[in-house]
Every structure is written in C-alpha cells, then in structure tokens.
C-alpha cells in the first residue's frame, strides 16, 4: 500500500531509479547471451532478430530504452547531488530526467516505426 509519507516527487524518483536499475540488471545477462549467439549459433540469432522486428517487441524495446535513459539521467542527477555544489531544485531536476528519458525513448520509437 502507498503510505502517505512517501507521496512526493523525490520518493517516486527513488523508486523509478531502483526499479529501472533492477530491470536493467535482469536484462543485461539476456542481452549478452543473445550477443554471444552471433559466435555460437548465428542461425538462432537471425531467428531472434526476426522475432525482434514484431511491433509488440519493438514497443517493449522502447520501454527498455526508457528504463536505460531514465536510469542514466536519474543517476546523473544523483551524482550531481552528491558531488557538485547542492542545488535545491531537485524536484525540477528529477522531472527533467524523466522528461529527457521520455524524449529519448519517444525518438527511438518514432525511428522504429
């Protein structure tokens, strides 16, 4: 259940960063496994690449790009928070990180169709 004391933007930014990080950690071994198929079983990789052309998979790939981008930009915000002179505009920076990720994944989807 959503507890009321968590209902503010920086807590959501924390959850988004944690969830995207976990999802990417799950994705990466699969990603490297599929890349390894290029050496070990090229014909299976070709089959996979044809499957990856399906519209629904492309859409999911857009989600993946969003996770990657939101983790990247959110991570940059946290690095700036901890290593640069502090900016009190953390909510705006977190919103900017999400906006940038929406832009990047949107451009990816537009180029995919």
């Amino acid at each position, binding site marked *: 259940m959503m507890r009321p*004391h968590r209902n503010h933007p920086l807590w959501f930014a924390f959850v988004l960063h944690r969830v995207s990080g976990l999802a990417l950690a799950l994705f990466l071994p699969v990603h490297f496994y599929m890349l390894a198929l290029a050496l070990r079983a090229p014909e299976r990789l070709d089959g996979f690449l044809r499957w990856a052309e399906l519209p629904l998979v492309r859409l999911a790939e857009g989600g993946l790009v969003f996770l990657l981008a939101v983790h990247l930009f959110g991570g940059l915000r946290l690095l700036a928070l901890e290593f640069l002179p502090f900016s009190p505009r953390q909510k705006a920076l977190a919103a900017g990180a999400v906006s940038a990720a929406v832009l990047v994944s949107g451009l990816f989807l537009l180029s995919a169709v």
Partner: protein
Amino acid sequence: MADNGQLEVSVWRGDSGSGRFESFRVPAEDNQTVLDVVSWIQQNLAGDLAYRFACRVGMCGSCAMTVNGTPRWTCRTHVKKVARNNRLTIAPLANLPVIRDLATDMDPFFARWIGAGGRFVPQRTRDDPVAPVRPDSPGRQAADAGIECINCGVCHAACDTVAASPDYLGPAPLQRAWTLVNDERHGARGAVLAAVSGAGGCHNCHSMGNCTAHCPKELDPLRAIAGLKRATFLGAFGKEI
C-alpha cells in the same frame, strides 16, 4: 463518516508489544490543532492516555505523532488541513519504540545525535574572548541552515532508510553533524566526519528526501547529508571542504 460537528478520531492505545486503535468522538472547532484533539480526549474521555507535549507553539519538538499516516508536529497541524471526512487516525511516531499510547522512547534518536559526533567541542574557555565568526561566511551560512532543528523526530519517523537499517544515524543527527563540520568554533570537525562515514553513516542515505519533505521547520537534511557525502569523499583524498 462522522456526524456534522463531530470528529471521528482513532487513537493508538498500547505499547511496542501490542495494542489497537480506539475510537473517540470529539467536538469539531473552527480553529483546532491535532494536539487540541488529543488533549480533549485525555481531559474528557481517556484520562490515562499517554502523550507528550510542552510548548504548544512549535518550539520544543515534543508533540510529534503520526497523523493519518504522516509524521507531523501536532501542535501546529490544523485539523482542517489533515482530516478526511472528519476522520483522524493518530498513532505514535514510527521507527521508535513506543512507551505507551502516543509517547515514544526518544532515547535511540538522541543516542544517534551523540553517535554522529553531535556534541559541541569548544576550542576556547570562558576566559578567552568570543571567537569572531562572520555571519556571511559560507561555512557559517551552511551551519545556520540546519541549526533551527527542534529535535522532534519527524524526519527520523519519515525516513525509509532508518526503517530498513537500524544502525543508520538518520537525517537529524547527520544534519547536526553538518552544522558542526561547518562551525569554525568546533574543535573536533575531523572526528565528526569520521563518525558519519562509518557503517551507519551518511553514505547509507538513498536521497529519497522524505526528511526534507516532512520537516516541520522546512529545513533540508537531504542537502546537509549531501554535503557530508561530498566532504567525506573529498576527505578520503586528503582534501578539506
């Protein structure tokens, strides 16, 4: 939903081991704080209700409770701001042992202040002249940003990292540490940085900002902890802040 003119108030009765919410009906007033409601219940309906307050004006930091799931200073929280359908749920602060009803044991909270090196160490005696400190110096301004803390424990109760890590010093003690690191009169600034860079120190903070979002004095422990992280990181390379 409670009747018009009446508040339906659920109050935690019990201790850390066991307890339950007990319902009370309290007359609604135009200008009424949550502490007024608790006091009315204690004076009229439940004389044995345990709770804590002193100043009633937001200075002493003793009346913090969990109101409808959110930690707040009850003496300066108006019922109209927080009641939903004339209902209030009042519980003791989270992340602290409950002595009884709404009174928590604050000892673990204050022990963390000491653990964070929060005790002032003077460099001069009372016989020496007063140390000149420029109010507009960056260090003094960084210290000034955190010294209005009233030790109410709201940030401690709101912090999910405190809830998950019993050893974590927490936002208020770390903010106290940051004021001392920036206080040029303090005689043990290196010891403060050593105290906050250990296992339960500032690097446990996940920067989720519950502390800053809920501080009733509108202080910014998130900023103070970020300062400590930066200072301890630079300190590891032999640089002073």
